[in-house]
């Protein structure tokens, strides 16, 4: 059964140097507060996993937390490039970044395999592209019935999965709705998990489109109101498009990036409700 504890404590318990960590949330419910806490705690050598590394991964990479990135699309959605990600790949600043690159369908299925206790997943994908040339974790597989050749990707089973949700009850049962992305799969695939929530409530009322994660498959739940900003939590907040635009200028320059991080992340405490 998940225990409901403060965010700083949860991150300290769950995320260690060298871990593989998946922060998921497909443009919605992105766990920014938890990512900031990882930065504050100074974690290093992480293998960061995420379908759509966006600003939070730009920040983790730029602050030197990551050694390796497993991803399928790395950009500032609706704006352009991630400058810290680019600087790491192109100039090895602040540290070299290994990349393992997939398509969305590939990573989504790798999480499905991870959640399903299977060593690999099968899809129609990658064929004819240059991805398999550079990504060793893409292999052909033959259908034992038709002889057709398809593609296999290995399961993703992160050490830790972190997601943000609308609410949880005191037993750590979690409810999220709207665009729910690949979060259920990430949590079920991981060895340990943290769910940050907008609020902890007495009882979870049924909600259309809601996905429920029972507390017994989650390690920790932490209250982090607004913890998905500048992304959004349907029913609680809207996307801060201005910040996504502003990030382009902040992150373009190493100095302005570090100054911003110092002011807005490093010297702030995690919310302690």
């Amino acid at each position: 059964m998940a225990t409901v504890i403060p965010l700083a404590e949860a991150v300290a318990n769950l995320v260690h140097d060298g871990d593989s960590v998946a922060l998921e949330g497909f443009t919605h419910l992105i766990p920014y507060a938890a990512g900031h806490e990882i930065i504050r705690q100074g974690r290093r050598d992480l293998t960061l996993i995420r379908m759509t590394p966006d600003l939070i991964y730009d920040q983790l990479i730029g602050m030197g937390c990551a050694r390796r990135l497993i991803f399928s699309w790395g950009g500032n959605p609706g704006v352009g490039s991630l400058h810290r990600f680019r600087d790491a790949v192109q100039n090895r600043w602040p540290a070299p970044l290994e990349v393992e690159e997939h398509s969305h369908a590939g990573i989504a299925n790798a999480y499905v395999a991870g959640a399903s206790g299977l060593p690999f997943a099968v899809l129609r994908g990658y064929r004819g592209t240059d991805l398999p040339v550079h990504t060793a974790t893409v292999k052909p597989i033959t259908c034992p019935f038709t002889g057709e050749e398809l593609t296999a990707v290995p399961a993703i089973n992160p050490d830790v999965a972190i997601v943000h949700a609308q609410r949880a009850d005191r037993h750590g049962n979690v409810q999220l709705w709207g665009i729910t992305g690949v979060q259920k799969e990430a949590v079920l695939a991981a060895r340990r998990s943290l769910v940050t929530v907008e609020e902890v409530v007495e009882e979870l009322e049924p909600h259309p489109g809601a996905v429920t994660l029972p507390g017994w498959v989650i390690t920790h739940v932490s209250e982090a109101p607004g913890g998905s900003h500048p992304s959004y939590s349907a029913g609680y907040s809207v996307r801060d498009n201005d910040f996504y635009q502003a990030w382009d200028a902040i992150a373009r320059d190493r100095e302005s990036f570090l100054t911003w991080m110092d002011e807005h992340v490093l010297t702030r405490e995690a919310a302690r409700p």
Partner: protein
Amino acid sequence: MTASGGQSTSTSGELLMSAPSPQSYTADEMMTVAAARRLRGGSCFVGIGLPSLAANLARRTHAPDLVLIYESGTIGAKPDLPPLSIGDGVLADTADSVVSVPEIFNYWLQPGRIDVGFLGAAQIDRYANINTTVIGPYEDPKVRLPGAGGAPEIAASCGEVTVIVRQSPRAFVDRVDFVTSVGFGSGPGDRERLGLRGRGPRTVITDLGILEPDPVTCELVLTHLHPGVTLERARAATGWELAAAPGLRETEPPADHELAALRALTGGHRS
């Protein structure tokens, strides 16, 4: 880039501003209208940015029943304004159904259920292969682009693919630096050999004209020039010897109602 890359960012990340046309509409408006016209109905897997704008324009004009599908899992989204991100709340709020990301790729895209895939590109080559991954060598790239997103499987599995991309020698290259999404590979027969079940790119719409694959060679040839654009200018903007199709025609300019609908979508400022 299907996954939110912004409005067809150039290889250096800035928006390529096309030169204003002498007409009462911009070249980008012509491009968007021409792209919207290609969507006749059925279902469309929509990349963010220009594809999303054109798909929403089609829904507002001649194709009100067009089913918009975004890789965030929203099926049948009916946004009032084009979403800024692939996962905008408005997509979920207006959708007929919202499913998980694995489901949208496995149950909806992969089986070939979706009629048209609508993609952008950073580079495109003569066989309509698309690059959104790197400029230069992969291990030591000149420019690191966002990557594949949903594009490889959209390009493989949709009934057909429409590409919308501004035309320039940097974008229209003889051979892409990296094949992120397969058009026709190295030419005829490659899609079949690879087991790709969709028909591949049938139309590439640019700010200068429209290109389509030659039925025999699969090479992209020019079938339409937008009003005021010369063949020479289109050729100068293309990194291979661009051929004109036998029946090369001028694109029908945007009608007033098309322009009005487009400008309503973009909030008055020209996209």
